[in-house]
């Protein structure tokens, strides 16, 4: 029977990236994926005839350009087009337009508050300081602060060094930043309700936290630390949908001789003598390998596909307590034409970006309150994009593909999800949009409604948590997924983790998979094929 050098469980973009760097180093690699298609939460499929749905992730910014370059993804078909515009509609018929040209954007902020227009300069510069600090650690293995190994000590020193490259007051600010709520953080800059609401949206996406919960300021950073061609904080559309990212990585992987098997769900990681030896598929088939890598989240990895008897009690307890609550829903909609937004002038570029319908922090917090009571938000926060305005491959000419990310949606609607409840959740979201777009409903040809439960069923993300685990300080850096296990190595030998449950966390970033590959190649004494950070200075 054939034995591989490495088996990667899960063809999420991190599993694929991990496998690609291993294959590039000459290893014989197999990726096994439970679904009949690859990508995990980085996927695009034709779910309505003629339409490509990116039915999980929908915009790209975090994906590391170093990985893009190292795997030559441009030649493997990837293209990320920066998106423009963006708007938060107000209930009174007005809006804040987040124009992409700085001059008119500034004037637009000033329309709501002259002071805020100037405060935005301070805000941008401050956020950039934190971005710069954190970006340097994305493609690095977190040091273990409790370890006495030279490498850990050196890495920890380097972490401290960049920390102390901040000025004294910046250090205070940075520590505050990591522990603050986004509402309180933004209120130190802005006064206009709609400006506050617009800039806080990125802080609650995917989290089981509200705008007034401590720790949400960091989530803003997590959404702002990416870049497109050096423009830190800007987002883009992958041509062909987010699935193009997974496809390009898969194509790179195959070009290095790696293999992918879809429709191959792993039942269990085989462990003998405290060493991983391979995997057993649901079909009963066994495949052996020198190294086994899991792209699944920490809960599913340790509580799902590993036998408790193979694991230290600490790991089981940590996995049980791992915070991975789902809080997001998604609607994917095929439209017969471009919807009208009467508040906007015809031809306005603002529809080209993220569109929001929540104009105060209070409404955002109330949306969260519903979730805590296991209800979907009656007045939901919606991040709506229409990528077919740029991308001709997503819908027939003149028709549109609409991606609607929804915060908040509970894992279990009171008493459990039913078909009726799911429909009612969808209707709540569509009503929210239709309040600002009267012809929206008439244009609908097809809707896919996804609660955390559908997201989990498809991708395996526990609870439907989009980040493979909450992004709070207790689960970041050397705490991710658990203290003592942040360096991608599992609790048994030859077993590794490469999913978003590991540093630097969720989002279509590719960094966890790449960092894990670096550690694996190191352990195997192979040449390191993973890229180094481009560096900022």
């Amino acid at each position, binding site marked *: 029977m054939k034995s591989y050098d490495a088996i990667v469980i899960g063809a999420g973009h991190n599993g694929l990236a991990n496998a690609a760097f291993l294959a590039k180093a000459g290893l014989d690699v197999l990726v096994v994926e439970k679904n009949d298609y690859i990508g995990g939460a980085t996927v695009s499929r034709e779910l309505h005839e003629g339409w490509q749905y990116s039915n999980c992730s929908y915009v790209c910014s975090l994906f590391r350009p170093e990985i893009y370059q190292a795997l030559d993804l441009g030649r493997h078909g990837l293209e990320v087009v920066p998106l423009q515009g963006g708007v938060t509609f107000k209930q009174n018929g*007005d*809006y804040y*337009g987040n*124009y992409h*040209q700085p*001059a*008119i954007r*500034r*004037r*637009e902020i000033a*329309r*709501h508050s*002259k*002071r*805020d*227009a*100037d*405060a935005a*300069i*301070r805000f941008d*510069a401050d956020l*950039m*300081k934190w971005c*710069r600090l954190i970006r340097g650690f994305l493609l690095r293995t977190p040091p273990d602060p409790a370890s006495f190994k030279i490498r850990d000590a050196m890495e920890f020193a380097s972490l401290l060094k960049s920390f102390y*490259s*901040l*000025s004294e*007051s*910046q250090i205070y600010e940075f520590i505050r930043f990591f522990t603050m709520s986004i509402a309180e953080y933004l209120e130190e*800059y802005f006064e206009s309700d709609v400006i506050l609401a617009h800039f806080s949206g990125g802080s609650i996406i995917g989290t089981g936290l509200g705008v007034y919960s401590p720790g949400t300021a960091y989530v803003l950073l997590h959404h702002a630390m990416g870049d497109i061609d050096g423009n830190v904080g800007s987002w883009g559309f992958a041509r062909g949908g987010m699935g193009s990212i997974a496809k390009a990585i898969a194509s790179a992987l195959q070009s290095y001789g790696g293999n992918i098997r879809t429709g191959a769900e792993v039942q269990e990681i085989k462990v003998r003598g405290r060493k991983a030896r391979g995997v057993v598929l649901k079909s009963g088939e066994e495949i052996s390998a020198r190294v086994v890598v899991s792209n699944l989240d920490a809960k599913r990895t340790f509580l799902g596909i590993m036998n408790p008897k193979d694991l230290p009690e600490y790991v089981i307890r940590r996995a049980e307590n791992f915070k991975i609550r789902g809080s997001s829903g998604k609607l994917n909609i095929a439209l017969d034409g471009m919807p009208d937004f009467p508040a906007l*002038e015809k*031809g*306005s*570029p*603002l529809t080209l970006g993220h569109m929001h319908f929540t104009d105060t922090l209070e409404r955002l917090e109330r949306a969260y309150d519903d979730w805590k009571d296991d209800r979907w938000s009656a007045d939901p926060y919606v991040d709506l994009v229409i990528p077919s305005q740029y991308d001709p491959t997503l819908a027939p000419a003149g028709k549109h593909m609409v991606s609607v990310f929804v915060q908040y949606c509970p894992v279990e609607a009171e008493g459990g999800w039913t078909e009726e409840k799911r429909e009612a959740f969808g209707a709540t979201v569509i009503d929210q949009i239709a309040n600002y777009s009267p012809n929206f409903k008439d244009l609908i040809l097809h809707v896919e409604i996804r609660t955390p439960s559908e997201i989990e069923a498809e991708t395996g993300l526990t609870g439907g948590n989009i980040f493979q685990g909450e992004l709070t300080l207790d689960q970041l850096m050397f705490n991710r997924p658990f203290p003592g296990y942040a360096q991608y190595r599992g609790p048994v030998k030859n077993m590794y983790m490469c999913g978003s449950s590991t540093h630097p966390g969720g989002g279509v970033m590719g960094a966890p998979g790449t960092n894990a590959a670096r550690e694996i190649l190191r352990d195997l004494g192979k040449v390191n094929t993973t890229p180094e950070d481009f560096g900022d*200075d």
Partner: protein
Amino acid sequence: MEKHDFREVLQRSPFFPRADALSQVKVWSPWNGYQTARIYDTLASEYFAIRSSCSVFDMTPMGKYRITGPDAIRFLTRLVTRDISKLKPGRVTYVVWCNDEGQVLDDGTIFHLGDDGYRLCAQHNQLDWLLISALGMDVTIEEETHEVAALSVQGPTSYSVLEAAGIDGLQELKPFDIVNTFLDGFDVMVSRTGFTGDLGYELWVDPNDALALWDAIFGVKARGLYDVRPIGLEALEMVRIEAGFIVPGDDFNTAETAVRADRSRSPFELGLGWVVNFDKPYFTGKRALLEEHARPIKRRLVKLSTEGNKPPHDSFLYDGKNGQRIGTIKTAIWSPILKSNLAMAEVEYIKGKRPAEIWAQIYYQKELEWKVVWERCEISGKPFWNPPRRNATPPEPF
């Protein structure tokens, strides 16, 4: 408030229709959100309009703030590093202001408008900082950038041109004086200020009167009396370096926009120690500046001239030919009037002392072929260009 037209990405100043009509090459740049001419005709003709006849520059986009209320002077005293207690009504003064770390946020000018309070002109957007600084004071701060139209009329014949245009009261106006006068029934405020280091005036009007003001000035040319030319940002850049004026954002990073910890600068490092006064009441940044002042200075923004005829654009500076690297050029020009290369440069000081020698390694190209030369540099303690006509009162006719 009325929504913006998304097609008008850049704002147009009230002078725009005239500027557009006179623009022969239609080369524009954004400046503080306004569509501003870089060049109207040719750089050389505009430069010499400033130095040999009369130039007109639309400076409406310059950030302007009105400061009024009982605590206005207390507020400004607290804000800026300079002692402004002796600033009289009808006078203007140059100032800088810092954050608590004594790092420069911006530079600008304060106009004492008498009963109408003060106008602060700034390079960068400052409303947020001004309001933060006003905490606990009985003062009103309003941005009036868009409510005041302004033209800068500069050059040896600027006085004659304005007089011919019908603007009175300039005869006795001294540098940094302000006069309120009338032209064809509308109010014009004139200050003898500018960014060129030459004889010149700045004229401030209600935007509704902007075109009438422009027409009165250019009417002097139409009547065949004196040449008057509009100038763009590029000519201004040349003359401001000759005059030794610094531009925040070009010559140094302002503290608010600096991201890296060592990228902001103190007034001492910018050569602006002369506007820092430790004897005045407390001002923001004083403590940090006192501490800094007690230590040897680490680096200085200097006015630098280099030998030869190749401006040291983007050059590194060394302490000798092929020596240690000790600095960089920020901005550089060839000065047509001085026939010399002039630059703003940042130079490292050792034990508080400037390097004994400074050399620039200059890359230049002729017909797409790149070459490199070494040239000796010299620091100038004074503005490169400061002609007597700049300050003569009454001004000379040309």
